[in-house]
């Protein structure tokens, strides 16, 4: 009773000051309030599971600036005309109707880590006991880059994906496509390699005589080396030219040139995937203190920020030993949700969390490989450690794997958004 009175008094004061956005008709949930910022794989999942696992006692508000999520997973298939953008669209309606997540379509301008509040672009503010930040990644601009539509990254599904598809479609047969891979850590480690394979297969069929230059800033293929090596130097060797350790120093958009440590490179179409860092909000809030100031360090038992314990950071924005990818982001979200449910019940987080990653890579337009790994919490290093026996890839690629990929995607998206 007392707590409720205090909360109501607080609300009245805040409302009088014109600072509060009403979360609901009620004063506040007795079970606690959580704001989730960002409705991607991590944010949608944490919102859903916070409601479900708290038996609807936690009040959960999801703040997202877009009306729907566009999946990055499977988005390379838009480039080859095998998928439509609408097949990648996932709305937030079910989170609201089935789970009672409150939706606020707005942009967060600032986070007050001490007060537990967020300021919105619309001018209002939201306050909660805990804030979960899941703003994903943003891209570094390279010197000389002025118009991001001329050398699209297409690494965040949407207009950029459609743009790259259009540029590839308009290219003459016998042309040169350049795909650049940034240094790790970046979103979806196998992603650029699988895109290269998929595009090579497509170029053979639709743009005969074309080349695909893959410029990798890393010293070697960063993941699934056996499969991608066989694909790059075997199956697609007549299309793909792979260059290791190539860093882009500047670009000239008018000439469609990339200047690198290995010389100047021209492309008719350039898919420039730049280096990546956590979403702007993470840096602004002072939480990007790991990985040379690029990502947010967290306690992987709860995903609480190491810099502001009232704030939790999940998904690609966080700095962990796990890959930045949707399947892992979904599991990080569940660990965070479980820890918050325990927190509001006065209990400590699960002391031995486990995550896994399953992911499929397109090697051709109809065949895929897979990659698997399980991470167990290591109390000594306080990190998630991959279990050696579980860390493996398929031997080669098959049509069955391609079908499994479609089923995996369907299940993963339903677990996150429905």
């Amino acid at each position: 009773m007392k707590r409720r009175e205090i909360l109501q008094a607080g609300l009245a004061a805040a409302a009088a000051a014109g600072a509060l956005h009403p979360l609901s008709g009620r004063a506040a949930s007795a079970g606690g309030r959580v704001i989730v910022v960002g409705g991607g794989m991590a944010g949608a999942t944490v919102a859903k599971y916070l409601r479900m696992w708290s038996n609807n006692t936690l009040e959960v508000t999801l703040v997202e600036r877009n009306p729907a999520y566009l999946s990055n997973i499977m988005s390379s298939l838009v480039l080859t005309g095998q998928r439509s953008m609408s097949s990648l669209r996932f709305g937030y309606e079910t989170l609201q109707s089935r789970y009672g997540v409150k939706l606020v379509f707005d942009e967060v301008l600032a986070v007050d880590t001490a007060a537990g509040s967020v300021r919105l672009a619309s001018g209002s503010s939201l306050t909660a006991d805990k804030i979960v930040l899941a703003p994903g990644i943003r891209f570094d601009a390279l010197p000389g880059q002025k118009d991001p539509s001329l050398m699209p990254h297409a690494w965040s599904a949407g207009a950029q994906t459609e743009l790259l598809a259009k540029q590839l479609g308009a290219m003459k047969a016998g042309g040169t496509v350049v795909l650049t891979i940034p240094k790790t850590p970046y979103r979806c480690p196998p992603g650029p390699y699988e895109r290269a394979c998929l595009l090579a297969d497509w170029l053979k069929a639709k743009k005969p005589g074309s080349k695909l230059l893959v410029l990798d800033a890393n010293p070697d293929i960063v993941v699934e080396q056996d499969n991608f090596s066989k694909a790059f130097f075997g199956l697609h060797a007549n299309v793909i030219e792979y260059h290791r350790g190539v860093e882009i120093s500047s670009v000239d958009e008018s000439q469609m040139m990339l200047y690198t440590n290995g010389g100047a490179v021209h492309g008719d179409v350039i898919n420039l995937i730049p280096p990546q860092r956590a979403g702007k909000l993470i840096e602004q809030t002072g939480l990007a203190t790991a990985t040379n100031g690029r990502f947010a360090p967290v306690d992987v038992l709860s995903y609480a920020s190491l810099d502001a314990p009232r704030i939790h950071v999940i998904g690609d924005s966080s700095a962990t030993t796990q890959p930045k990818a949707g399947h892992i982001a979904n599991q990080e979200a569940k660990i965070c949700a479980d820890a918050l449910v325990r927190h509001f019940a006065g209990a400590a987080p699960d002391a031995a969390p486990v995550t896994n990653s399953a992911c499929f890579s397109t090697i051709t337009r109809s065949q895929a490989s897979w990659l698997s790994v399980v991470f167990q919490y290591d109390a000594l290093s306080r990190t998630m450690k991959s279990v050696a026996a579980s860390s493996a890839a398929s031997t080669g690629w098959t049509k069955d794997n391609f079908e499994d990929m479609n089923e995996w995607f369907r299940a993963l998206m339903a677990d996150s958004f429905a």
Partner: protein
Amino acid sequence: MRCMQSVKTGALVLALISSSGAWAQTTVPPPGRLLASNCFQCHGTNGKGPGFERLAGESSDEIYKELKEMQSGKEGQGLMTKHAMGYTDAQLRAMSKWFSTQR
């Protein structure tokens, strides 16, 4: 050892719930649920699909036996074999048991 720890944690959790008043409206998770949620990405929320095989409501012994067979490598070197190799015996038991409680 693991059993001892979870008994201790359980007791601590109970003590905390009874002393925490209003906060106790949120419940402490049942054992095995967070572990089992590792399977939801491919087998559906609570193992109820959509996705690969439905796990909800299957017998605990059946799920466990199947996971152990996969873990042994006798069923080939597929993705699930590799996944099963990432979990301890106690973890496989805990998640199997949790799925059997789902209807």
